[in-house]
């Protein structure tokens, strides 16, 4: 009766195989990510199905959805543009950036543009504090990061989506070119099945809690 399992049996087996059988609850993150691929957000029945697969309570699964900005519990636009406005980023003007961006798009934080194209969200530390203002984009093609942004570059990106729907590679817009090693992982391929990228992502989320406590 587990629709999620039926639909993604191979993927789920592949994910579960990465964890010791007595610690399969650890697979909750990739399974949530997998479930999110369907509709762009996680529905209540997904929690139940994941709970069943991992033999934990639906509440345990649900707590994780709320904790990480990686997951969404309600539908959003085609692209989710998630701006970090945690303390270090705020010091580099993230709040102002976010405010202006919203103003230009005619939405409030958390809202979606009327054409359903973009949802603007404020999120916790994305582990790129020194390259703020920055945001991550989540959409059907996975996760990408855009660092050292200005309102103009961000708007250009939105315009680009609006005109042809395709996503340009992040590099021409973000000023990443020339920078060497970054603590922020850049997915080099489209992320569908969840793998290392997402777990790295959670690592940066954990960092966020620490930042959180100090504010």
């Amino acid at each position, binding site marked *: 009766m587990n629709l999620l399992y039926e639909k993604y049996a191979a993927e789920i087996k592949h994910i579960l195989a990465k964890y010791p059988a007595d610690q399969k609850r650890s697979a909750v993150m990739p399974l949530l990510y997998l479930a999110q691929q369907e509709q762009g957000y996680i529905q209540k029945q997904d929690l139940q199905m994941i709970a069943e697969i991992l033999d934990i309570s639906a*509440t345990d699964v649900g707590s994780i959805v709320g904790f990480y900005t990686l997951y969404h519990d309600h539908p959003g636009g085609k692209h989710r543009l998630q701006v970090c406005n945690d303390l270090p980023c705020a010091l580099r003007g993230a709040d102002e950036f976010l405010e202006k961006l919203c103003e230009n798009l005619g939405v409030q934080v958390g809202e979606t543009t009327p054409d359903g194209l973009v949802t603007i969200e404020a999120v916790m530390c994305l582990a790129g504090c020194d390259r703020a203002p920055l945001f991550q984009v989540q959409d059907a093609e996975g996760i990408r990061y855009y660092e050292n942004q200005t309102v103009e570059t961000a708007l250009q990106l939105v315009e680009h989506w609006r005109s042809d729907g395709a996503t340009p590679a992040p590099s021409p817009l973000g000023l990443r070119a020339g920078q060497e090693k970054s603590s922020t992982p850049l997915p080099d391929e489209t992320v569908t099945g969840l793998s290392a990228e997402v777990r790295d992502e959670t690592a940066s989320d954990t960092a966020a809690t620490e930042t959180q406590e100090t*504010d």
Partner: protein
Amino acid sequence: MAQLISLMIDDKPVKVPEGTLIVNAAKKVGIDIPVFCYHPKMEPVGMCRMCLVEIGRPQIDRETRKPVLDEQGNPVIQFGPKLETACTTPVSEGMVVMGMSDKVKKGRQDILEFLLTSHPLDCPICDKGGECPLQNLTMEHGPGVSRFLYDEKMHLAKHYPLGDLILLDRERCIQCGRCVRFQDEIVGEPVIGFEQRGRSLQIETFSDPGFDSYYSGNTTDICPVGALTTTDFRFGARPWELKPVASVCSQCPVGCNITYNIRREARAGGRYVIKRVLPRQHEEVNEIWICDKARFAGYQYAESPERLTRPMLRRNGELVESSWDEALQVVAERFKAATGGLVTYAGGRLSNEDLFNLKQLTEGLKGQAILKSSIGGGVLVAQMGVAKGTDLGKLGAGDAILVIASDLQEEAPIWWLRVKQAADRGATLIVVNPRQTRLDRFATHTLRYDYGSETATVLAMINALESKKTRLPDWLAKYRPNRFQTAAAKAFAGAKNGIILFGQEGMDLPRSQELALACANLLFLTDHLGSPNNGLIGVWESANTQGAWDMGFRPSTELKEMFSSARAVYVVAADPAGDDPSLADALEQSEFVVVQELFLTSTARLADVVLPVTAQPEREGTYTTGERRVQRFFPAIPAPGGVIPDYEIAARIGERSGLKMENRAASLVFAQLAARVSDYEGLSYRSLAETHEQWPIIGRDDLYYGGTAYENTQGLGVQLMPSSQKRKIFQVNWQEPPVRVSGKGLLGVPITRLYDRGATVTPSRSLASRVPGPFILVNETTAQKLDMHNDAPVQLMLAGSAYSAMLRVDTAVPESVVLVPRSLGIPLSELQPVDIRVAETTPA
């Protein structure tokens, strides 16, 4: 014994075992360190920072590894630059703790200022106001003013239903996590959790149905603010208006100690009414927990308008009200005339005093005292029950607990909790059941058997043991153990202490007697008898079934014959006609039926005389728990005019029949009982009222520490010694279970559910939504074979009659088995073939 550590807390010298947390060390010498997230029953998490103290440790010389001494020869104490949490820091030798310094006071002020940043401070309308740790600690340690902007307070849901019984006020929650940890750590049912984070952190449930746990009410006791409230008590009263009355829960054989909170109310004409039920500490029985049945169904029945308040006599075929004099006279005359033909049928809801007097009366009239119980083995429990000094809370690594034929969480929720925690502490838990139950998850060994072969399973386990203390009968050889049974048997035999709890899943009286005997023999052969934490526990169906056995009542397999041939039947606190229609027929045939009851039950409807009684919260008495602990309860509320306690009715009937019986007070009946019932020798109401200090210390001014559970000041009761502890040699009896042939087709199996339609449960307002209508359980395959789906209305065909029920699909049910909950309207009391049909659609 752990090593003792010496330290100073606020200039007081303290000596505590190694590993003790500072907060607890302080508590032991009467120093209160304020806490919110710490709770003595749970692992420390250090989340709230309320317990900050200054900690100094002796400076150690790096070279010599010895403490550095000052000129006076005293060790030099080095204080850390920051405050530390007393709830997460264990004591260490020579430590100096300062809990009153200016720095600490400032720390507390700051933490409280933070906690109150967005707190609604609606104390005047908050259920917790008056017993609120946050309120109290703010008064004591708070800054008095806040630097945070009032206008920026968050506004959140004030009445968020987490489940049917518990509501959450999100503005009041301080995110201490006690509720979440209780459900996760203690109960093992993490159905509430944190969601979001930072300032958006909230308590939430994603389970379906939401916060649905038999232990949910306890979270409202330990929540340090008014964030969690029960549908039962919210906005019901202010804590300072309430008076506490000690009692014992009357719902199951665990015997949890409880407190009724009462106050006078206009709606009751100025009389006292019960406003809520809270746990009363008894570390050897229920610690500081109770289940939701105790909290929400334990008393509301007493207030039911359906209560009987006048005696009734049958005149011209109708029950009409009469005076007590007349009713008692009629009963006494008929009983006397029945010479030898009196059958007294009593339920385990009665107190020891009631049962003692009923037994005296019945014996005096040469009648038979019959116990309503489908579980046998009470005499065995008196001989081989758990020994005096038993405490499930002490069992852990090296010990073993075997639970057989019992869905323990449904039958005795607090035992379930304590057994589960014993397993958490490392005890070997052996769960032997025909289907999966909630205990299996914590079991070391899970054995399955087919319905009907519970005794065979135990006999096979006995067979698996090598060291044979006594010659085993030859027929035993045919019970060959499989490897799982062998492993479990060896684990049980090898344990330091061993306890067996046996229940009544799918059993009638004869089967249950066989099982009890087999369990007793297993205990005997493994030497788990006669010393504390060893022995047999019956998971009885009522609070005082054990007491009834002890008072000399015995169940009977020939009830029908007995009733139909009796010259007089005296039914007390039981409803045989409601349980089983064939017993109703039998009662119709008997010459004279007297029913002594709270409500007009099916049996009362066909009685010749109906006598109304006092409810448990309205009177005093004692119960004997399944662990054979005799405990007192006290009158909390006045009884409605016209009702009399059971023991008194029995005595008055006795007097009118020429017997000398005690009717004046329960305490005097108990004195007689203690003089005549040998195991109860030497007990008195006074000895049952004795207490000693328990750990953790709770229920005093420091409600923030343990929660709102009450300290036990009214008595811990006395645990009886089974004969095995009195060094009486126990003779093993062997009885070969008869071979029974089971039919083909569907097998109906009676099971027990916590929320049933028992007389004292149905009137509960709070539980109304939780008590289901009649339902039956089958697994998917069976449902498919029947071509039926979950939640289908069906008819259960049983012994020629049809009963409407809902069909529910449950994967834990074995194939071709139909589980039929007892006391929900379908009279199945033994394994019996059944049939399921599509419900005839009722014309609209």
